[in-house]
């Protein structure tokens, strides 16, 4: 278990750094930053105010170290306090509502985009994908387009000009009630279509370009030439020799890029008023609801770390060299 354990250890360290950052950021801010937060919620009851001050590090709470330990304790008990803008609803409740929407939308769309993009990338590096080469500059343009800008365009075209898809929210709350009913699910899908399309279109380009570049490097390797020397079919050469090996750095790239993809998707949620955690985070930041803000940051970090760990696990399965490291004594 050496390889995975080492990776897990690293992710735990990263998580600890994130927690510590959360703790120190309010304390490192210039004085009027904290005042600005407190000023936004003058109506808070004394108990709530005290709790807020505890997270912000103002007031007399004891030494920094004891505050830190208290904070760590809270985090491990998943106690993030109450949201300020939705007082007295606890932060965890609000976050739990948004998490499903985001995982459903962003998770599914990202995986689809990765699979499709990687497939296109393999084609583009091979004779069979000949004409795809002409699409490359277009792909680069798409990759450079901010998610939310594309979202705006899509809404303009498909939502407003052509009224094909709804442009806000996760479902139509007026006419539909949540539940495992077909009309509800169809409505959800309807609302999720444009946001998902935005994510897929922008990130497919990125994955395709990345896979194509990796393929180009891989087909230059000696073992691919050897495969051709063996008189193997083009298909086997490209798939089993080139693509199979190119997949390894491509997956590693996926792990590294997960953070970026999620970030882009979060901002896009605001354009669609999609009630995922991105939407919640941005609103929390705008309204200076610091407990909510910090909790969501931690959640997103955990999600990215977990995704990275999953990628590592997949790597153990498909790369025999990593597998060897994994079982090495």
């Amino acid at each position, binding site marked *: 278990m050496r390889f995975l354990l080492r990776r897990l250890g690293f992710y735990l360290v990263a998580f600890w750094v994130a927690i510590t950052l959360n703790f120190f950021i309010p304390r490192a801010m210039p004085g009027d930053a904290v005042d600005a937060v407190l000023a936004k919620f003058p109506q808070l009851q004394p108990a709530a105010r005290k709790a807020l001050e505890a997270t912000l590090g103002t007031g007399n709470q004891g030494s920094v170290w004891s505050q830190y330990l208290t904070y760590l304790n809270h985090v491990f008990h998943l106690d993030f306090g109450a949201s300020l803008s939705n007082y007295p609803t606890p932060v965890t409740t609000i976050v739990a509502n948004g998490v499903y929407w985001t995982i459903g939308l962003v998770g599914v769309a990202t995986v689809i985009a990765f699979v499709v993009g990687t497939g296109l990338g393999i084609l583009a590096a091979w004779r069979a994908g000949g004409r795809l080469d002409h699409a490359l500059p277009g792909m680069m343009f798409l990759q450079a387009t901010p998610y939310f800008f594309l979202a705006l365009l899509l809404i303009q075209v498909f939502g407003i000009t052509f009224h094909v898809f709804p442009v806000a929210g996760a479902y139509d709350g007026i006419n539909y009630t949540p539940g495992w009913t077909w009309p509800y699910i169809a409505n959800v899908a309807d609302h999720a279509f444009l946001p998902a399309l935005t994510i897929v279109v922008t990130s497919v380009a990125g994955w395709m370009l990345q896979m194509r570049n990796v393929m180009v490097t891989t087909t230059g390797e000696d073992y691919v030439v050897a*495969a051709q020397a*063996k008189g193997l*079919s083009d298909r086997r050469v490209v798939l089993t020799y080139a693509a199979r090996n190119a997949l390894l750095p491509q997956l590693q790239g996926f792990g590294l890029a997960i953070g970026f993809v999620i970030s882009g998707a979060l901002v896009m949620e605001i354009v669609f008023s999609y009630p995922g955690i991105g939407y919640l985070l941005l609103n929390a930041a705008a309204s200076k609801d610091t407990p909510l803000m910090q909790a969501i940051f931690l959640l997103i970090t955990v999600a990215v770390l977990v995704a990275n760990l999953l990628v590592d696990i997949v790597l153990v399965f498909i790369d*025999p060299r990593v597998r060897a490291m994994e079982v090495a004594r």
Partner: protein
Amino acid sequence: MSPVLDIKDLSIAYQTPGGDVRAASHVNLSINKGEVVGLCGESGSGKSTLAYGACRLLRPPAVITSGSVLYSGARTGTTLPVDILRLPPDDLRAIRWRDVAIVFQSAMNALNPVLRVRDQILDGMEAHLRLRKDEAHEKAARLLDLVGIPRERLRSYPHELSGGMRQRVMIAMALAADPEVVIMDEPTTALDVVVQRDILAQIVELKDTLGFSVLFITHDMSLLLELCDRIAVMYAGRIVELGSAADLQNAAAHPYTQGLLRSFPSLHGVRRELTGIPGSPPDLRDPPRGCPFIPRCGFAQPGCAQVDMSLIPVRGGRSPLHVTACPFVTHEGAVNAAPEQETTAPEGALS
């Protein structure tokens, strides 16, 4: 009997923005059945380019600009030799490995890291032979036996094997489809001397048993003198001398070959000073007229710039098959007079 592989007038160039690099120019080389032919030259001489180009394995920007590669092994349905360079892709793929196989230089790089040894041997086999699954597996196992690797290694991945083992696997892989010609590109250069000896011995044994021909490419002349029937020496993309191992060892005619022979010590014989060959290989982009060896040749004279590098039998040589590209120099040294001043009718002289 026609040679198994006959390379005729082969020229290969790389098209680069700075001009065409002539990696091989008008090379003639033939390999007969059961023969071991050595191809010797320093880095950049074009020996690997020649071998891969003959199988059309070079990547862009390589182009084959002239020549033909005639194959007439035991399996062509016709009695006429077949030109590998003009085969349609499907037939080319059929000839590869089944008739002409290659053992690559660096086994670590030439083996697919994510496939087991068994699968890599099998796919070369299955692409050309229709065998039942159990027969194929048995054959793969026997191939490992032949090269001296335990059968359990079939299930190993390349990174689990030592360097010597990997090279043996490459050899076993090359023999998987029973080829007639095996091209070996520096198969032992990356290995230590002891393993090198082992593997070379193995190659000789296999050749004797199975009867394939070998084209052995290396920069190590001493190796070739021991191993080969005939040796070709390449310089700057051209063959400069060609002859039997005995011819080259005792009566090397071309100044470059002589320089090579003086560059390594021999265990027997008189102690002599080791001299290298001063200078460096020429830029192949715009080769000057005449012989490319002029800047480094101790015998250079004005007539060298008119040499057309065609191979002529060595003057005073023991066999008409011992040919050289230098009309001026033999084993004894330079011929005193330039050829046009000779009164005897020159055979195969310059045009």
